[in-house]
């Protein structure tokens, strides 16, 4: 168990972060380069003002009309995404590991807060799963890939929660937690989880076209 633990927190961890960050970076560079050669006019219409205006509008709950029409979804998705990003980044155990490993550190959340946030992430995922079974359109375009990705995101949070509460074997849970977290990071650049990068890119472009060319808001 110890050797797996060391491998998972050592080389595998490095690999996961390199693939995650490098993969997104490469994706960004290759898309921009491809656009420059095949659709250069995208840049001609690109407007930081209108682009950011659109991104910001979509980052405020209940500003877009579709957000107002789907209040439950809006609340869940905002809570989910905030907790998804904040909990792992500011979890005390993670920050301590980081300090030991590379000497960087920043503020942390209390364990109780992180615990609640983890539950929110899991509840959010449960809601998304429920929606994929009941909303006619979501159901129509949900395939095995969507379920795998949902599970992939759920796994590190679920195992982290179980490990923290010492349910089942602690050591096994911790190792599973680390491995599943790494699997999730690695999957991001290669699946629609990459919307974390593509959301601002596509929205900025669309915002530029709608605001700059068509003089109308896109939310």
């Amino acid at each position, binding site marked *: 168990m110890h050797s797996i633990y060391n491998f998972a927190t050592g080389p595998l961890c490095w690999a996961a972060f390199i693939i995650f960050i490098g993969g997104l970076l490469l994706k960004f560079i290759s898309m921009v380069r491809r656009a420059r050669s095949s659709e250069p006019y995208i840049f001609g219409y690109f407007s930081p003002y209108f682009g950011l205006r659109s991104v910001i509008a979509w980052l405020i709950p209940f500003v877009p009309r579709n957000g107002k029409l789907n209040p439950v979804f809006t609340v869940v998705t905002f809570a989910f995404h905030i907790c998804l990003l904040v909990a792992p980044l500011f979890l005390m155990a993670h920050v301590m590991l980081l300090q030991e490993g590379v000497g960087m550190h920043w503020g942390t959340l209390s364990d109780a807060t992180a615990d609640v946030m983890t539950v929110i992430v899991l509840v959010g995922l449960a809601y998304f799963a429920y929606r994929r079974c009941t909303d006619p359109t979501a159901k129509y375009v949900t395939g095995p890939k969507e379920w795998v990705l949902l599970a992939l995101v759920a796994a590190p949070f679920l195992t982290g929660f179980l490990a923290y509460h010492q349910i089942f074997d602690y050591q096994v849970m911790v190792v599973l937690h680390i491995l599943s977290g790494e699997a999730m990071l690695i999957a991001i650049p290669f699946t629609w989880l990459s919307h974390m990068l593509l959301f601002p890119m596509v*929205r900025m472009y669309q915002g530029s076209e709608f605001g700059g060319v068509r003089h109308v808001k896109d939310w």
Partner: protein
Amino acid sequence: MSEQTKETKVIEDIGIDAGLEQLTEEQIEKTIMSVINAEGGTRLEAYTKTCVHCGLCSEACHYYHSHDKDPQYAPVGKVRNTMWNFLTKKGKISKEELKRAVLIAHTECNLCRRCVQYCPFGVDTAYIIALVRRIVHKLGITPQYIQDTAHSHAATFNQMWLKDDEWVDTLFWQEDEARDEIPSMRIPLEKEGADFMYSVIAPEPKFRTQLIYQAAVIFNECGLDWTMPSTTGWDNSDMCMFTGDFEMMGRLKRDHYECAQRLKVKKVVMGECGHAYRSIYDQGNRWVGWRDMPVPVIHSIQFFWELLKAGKIKVAKTIDKLATFHDPCNTVRGMGLHEMGREVAKAFYPNFVEMQPNREHNYCCAAGGGVINCGPPHKMTRVLGNRVKAEQLKATGAEVLIAPCHNCHGGLEDIIHHYKLDMEIRFLGDIIYECMEKPNAV
């Protein structure tokens, strides 16, 4: 039999069916993949990779609402049955699937771009569907009626097979007619250096000559310095944009702009048409390589609004009936002209009610994007696909429906007729002509 194949059997269109018969599977595969690789570009990649399959865009689409939330009609559902299918099967698709894709792309999507405003990521389903149409065009299986208008564009540079002399004749005829009412009336042809050139879509001289008459009267009574061309370039419409014949779209727009440049006018004013506007400020100009419009083009909505604000159009009478305003996709989601449009409308119809939703969130008429131009075989697809429009109109209780777009008129007329709504549809020009002060009239 699945629902899809059932529908495929029902609708016959010689343009699709005869074209499909001539195709081999290799041709289909090769064409699909070559268009995707050469033209799909970063945007196709970004849109397909960003989509998280959440289905939130379904809220945007009138077809989806009108078919009781059948996901086949949701924007992402349409992409699933067209482009995703092409991509996952690498172009190896059956003729049956291909026919279904043609019907979806040409008759079940108006390229109205409402879904861009409902997808959190801004995935542009209209772009993806337009790319499907491009593939369909390259395969030679475009629906017959709209293909015929595209042929007309290629042969005559207008949409309706009008001959050169018929165009000029029609203008003389309208001028002649109008002189009974306004003896000093002129439709100035080929006047170099005029303030603006007025351009229209070919269905105006073909079927709706009264619109040319009315516009001419308005310009005359406002004392404007204007002209119309006697050569090609007078027709600003563009069905080639909708069939995916982008080469021809570029030639059309170049001709239109060059016509204005030859006449050395300061700007072009165009009639109440939505799609032609999109072709001019958004798609055609880009294909030719103009970032913006080389000669400013102003839509009638804006032009009428300016004339009204400048006090050139004077309101002689208002009409008491309850009126509502339909925002055409290409003038609101296309150019943000919603406030100007309703200001002009309200000047003549003070008794005004909004339909819900309105402005840039209005539902499309289901005729746009070339769908009405696919002709009679597909009429019911768009009428049944827009029940929600009928409900939206009915809820206003209005007697008059103002819609400043030709395509919208065609589509709304069919909807009003089919769902037995009692509404009169009007253009802004038609209202202004009736209600403005006409100092030179006898």
